[in-house]
C-alpha cells in the first residue's frame, strides 16, 4: 500500500481504535444502565469527545445536577487540554479550516500522536494530524454506539483492555525519551504528577500537577540560561 497521510494515520491510530472501542463501549453501557439511549451516547461522543469527561457526566446527568456544577466538574477533568494547544499553535497554524476541527478533537491520544517524536518527512504533517483527529473521533463514536447497542451482553471478559491507552502513553514516553538528550522535562512531568497525586488525591491532582510542571519547566530554563555551558 502506498504510504500516504491517511494510511500512516490509520496505522498509527490502531492502538487508539482498540482503546476507544472498548472505553467507548464501557461508556455506552454505563449510559444504558442510567436510562440514556443510544442517541444521547452518540450525541455526547460527537460533541464532547472526551473520555473521562463523558464518564463523569453520566453520573451528573443521572442526578440532574445543576449546569454550573456540570461546567465546573468538566473544567476540572479537562483542564489538562489547556496545555495541549501550547505545543500545537505553530503546527496547526497554516492548516486552514481544518484547524478548528483539529482543535475541537484534541484528545489525550490525538495529542500524543500528533506531537510524537518520529514524523515521516514524505507526508504532509497537517494532513496527517487531521486524519488522526478524524479517525480517533470516528472510533470513539463507534465505541459509544456499540456499547449502547450491546449493553452488558459481551460473552468473554475483556477486563483490562483499557490498558491499551496506558501502553500507548508509555510507548510515546519511551519514544520521546530515546529521541532527546535532555530528560529533565520527562522527569519533571512524571515526578510532579506523582507527587501531586500523593498530596492531593486522585480527584484533584491534575491542576496542581500542571501548575507544578509549568513552574519547574520555566525554572529549568532560567537555570540553563544562567549556566549556558552546564
Amino acid at each position, binding site marked *: 500500500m502506498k504510504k500516504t497521510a491517511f494510511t500512516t494515520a490509520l*496505522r498509527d491510530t490502531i*492502538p487508539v481504535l482498540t482503546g476507544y472501542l472498548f472505553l467507548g463501549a464501557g461508556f455506552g453501557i454505563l449510559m444504558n444502565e442510567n436510562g440514556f439511549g443510544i442517541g444521547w451516547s452518540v450525541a*455526547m461522543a460527537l460533541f*464532547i469527545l472526551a473520555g473521562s*469527561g*463523558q464518564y463523569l457526566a453520566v453520573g*451528573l*446527568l443521572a442526578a*440532574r445536577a445543576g*449546569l454550573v456544577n*456540570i*461546567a465546573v466538574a*468538566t*473544567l476540572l477533568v*479537562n483542564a*489538562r*487540554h*489547556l*496545555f495541549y*494547544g*501550547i*505545543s500545537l*499553535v505553530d503546527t496547526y*497554524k497554516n492548516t486552514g479550516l481544518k*484547524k478548528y476541527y483539529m*482543535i475541537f478533537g*484534541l484528545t*489525550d491520544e490525538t495529542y*500524543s500522536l500528533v506531537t510524537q517524536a518520529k514524523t515521516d518527512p514524505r507526508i504532509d504533517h497537517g494532513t496527517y494530524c487531521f486524519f488522526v483527529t478524524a479517525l480517533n473521533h470516528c472510533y470513539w463514536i463507534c465505541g459509544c454506539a456499540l456499547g449502547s447497542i450491546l449493553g452488558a451482553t459481551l460473552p468473554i*471478559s*475483556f*477486563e*483490562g*483492555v483499557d*490498558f*491499551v*491507552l*496506558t*501502553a500507548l*502513553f*508509555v*510507548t510515546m*514516553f*519511551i519514544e*520521546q525519551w*530515546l529521541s532527546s538528550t535532555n530528560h529533565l522535562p*520527562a*522527569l519533571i*512531568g*512524571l*515526578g510532579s*504528577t506523582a507527587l501531586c*497525586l500523593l498530596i492531593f488525591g*486522585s480527584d484533584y*491532582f*491534575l491542576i496542581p500537577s500542571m501548575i507544578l*510542571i*509549568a513552574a519547574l*519547566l*520555566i525554572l529549568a530554563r532560567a537555570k540553563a540560561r544562567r549556566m549556558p555551558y552546564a
Partner: protein
Amino acid sequence: MPDTYLIAAIAVAALVTAATRFLPFLIFGNGKKTPDIIVYLGKVLPYAIMGMLVVYCLKNVSFISAPFALPELISCAVVAILHIWKRNTLLSIAAGTVGYMLLIQFVF
C-alpha cells in the same frame, strides 16, 4: 418531547470541553509573534505531558493493598523494555495490553 435539561447539560459539557481546547490557540494563535516562553513551553511540554498521562492512567491503582500495583508495573515494564528493544509501537502496545489482561484475569 425532547428532554431540554439533557440537551442543555450536554451542551454545557461540550462547550466547556471545547473551551479548554481552544483557549491556548485564542491566546497565542493570533498571528502575532508567540512569546519566547510559550515557544519554549510548547517544545518541552510534550515530554512532560507524556509523563503526566502515564501517571494519570494509573491514578486509581493502589500501591498499599494487594496486588500492590504489580499487574500495572509489570505490564508497563514489558511495554517499556520491548519498546526500547524493538522500537515497534504496535508490538509494544499489543504485548503489554494482552499481558495485562492475562495478569489481572488469571494471575492476580
